[in-house]
């Protein structure tokens, strides 16, 4: 990744380009989370979505139907995450079960 390269021409990147801004607000790793597009039903990892990083925020679109799935905008002192294009996100978490409790977050 070398984001100075995105200053001209084709601005489409992959969802992993949004990993930094998402990691500012999500504790779980987002780029390996699964998403379902609410418009076409496609299920993809965030890292495989189309990312547009040149807008005032970061826009993630469905690779299949181009619908806007997520928008992340940083402002002074706050970060807005608009997920209305998603039906759901699925994150990997530690398997619940009998343990010493050391897995508790």
């Amino acid at each position, binding site marked *: *990744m*070398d*984001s*100075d*390269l*995105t*200053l*001209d*021409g*084709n*601005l*489409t*990147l*992959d*969802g*992993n*380009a949004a*990993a*930094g801004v998402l*990691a*500012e*607000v*999500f*504790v*779980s*790793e987002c*780029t*390996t989370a699964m998403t379902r597009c609410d418009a076409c039903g496609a299920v993809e*990892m*965030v*890292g*495989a979505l189309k990312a547009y990083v040149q807008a005032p925020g970061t826009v993630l679109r469905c690779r299949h139907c181009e619908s806007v799935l997520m928008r992340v905008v940083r402002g002074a002192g706050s970060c807005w995450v608009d997920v209305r294009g998603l039906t759901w996100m699925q994150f990997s978490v530690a398997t619940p079960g009998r343990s010493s409790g050391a897995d508790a977050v």
Partner: protein
Amino acid sequence: MGRLSWQPATVTDAFAETPQVRTLELDVTGWTGHLPGQHVDVRLTADDGYQAARSYSIASAPEEKGPRLTVERIDAGEVSPYLVDELRTGDRIEVRGPIGGFFVWHAGLGGPVLLLAGGAGIVPLAAMLRHRVASGSDAAVRLIYSSRSLGEVIYREELDRLATHEGVDVVHTLTREQPAGWRGFGRRVDRELLAEAAWPASSSPLTYVCGPTAFVEKVAGSLVQLGYDPRTIRTERFGPTGR
């Protein structure tokens, strides 16, 4: 895993890879290690307080000192000319990371692994290759690396050394200019080149493609045409310039 925050980093070494490309070795406060393929965000602050941040892939293997970043100068860029031309050993910048879990390969994922690099797209893939060798993994790894000319091949001598390890293949293609007697490929990575140089789709490799957007689109599309499962192909695009 906690939320991401900016950390001070000191440049401990800096050296040219090619006239356009430089590697920076950093000492980052509180660095907890990384996985091959991850990146960091770099933030520069001007005297007047203006800040600019960009993402750069980590070049080093987790087993090595570092992290090291390899940066290509984009003349119209706001950050890379400073990193390539101005930054000196001992200077301080800010970084946050490591970032990203999607475009990642580590020895535990096994092989075979197919790496396809266009230009500076070699950087995260070289981290995977270095880790493959440094970790003692026996995963079969093949790198197909497209550059404009021999002089623009990043890490050329090191890749030659890595390719001497059992199970590691490095295939070069030079798209604009080939030296006399060149025995590698001399054209862009397309379906025919992949049919000849990549593993057949039936071997189901984990595939990582990194480079300019046009390179990634062409290569990923060709792999799917050749029967690769799209879900085994992970891509990282970083903008324009045809190679």
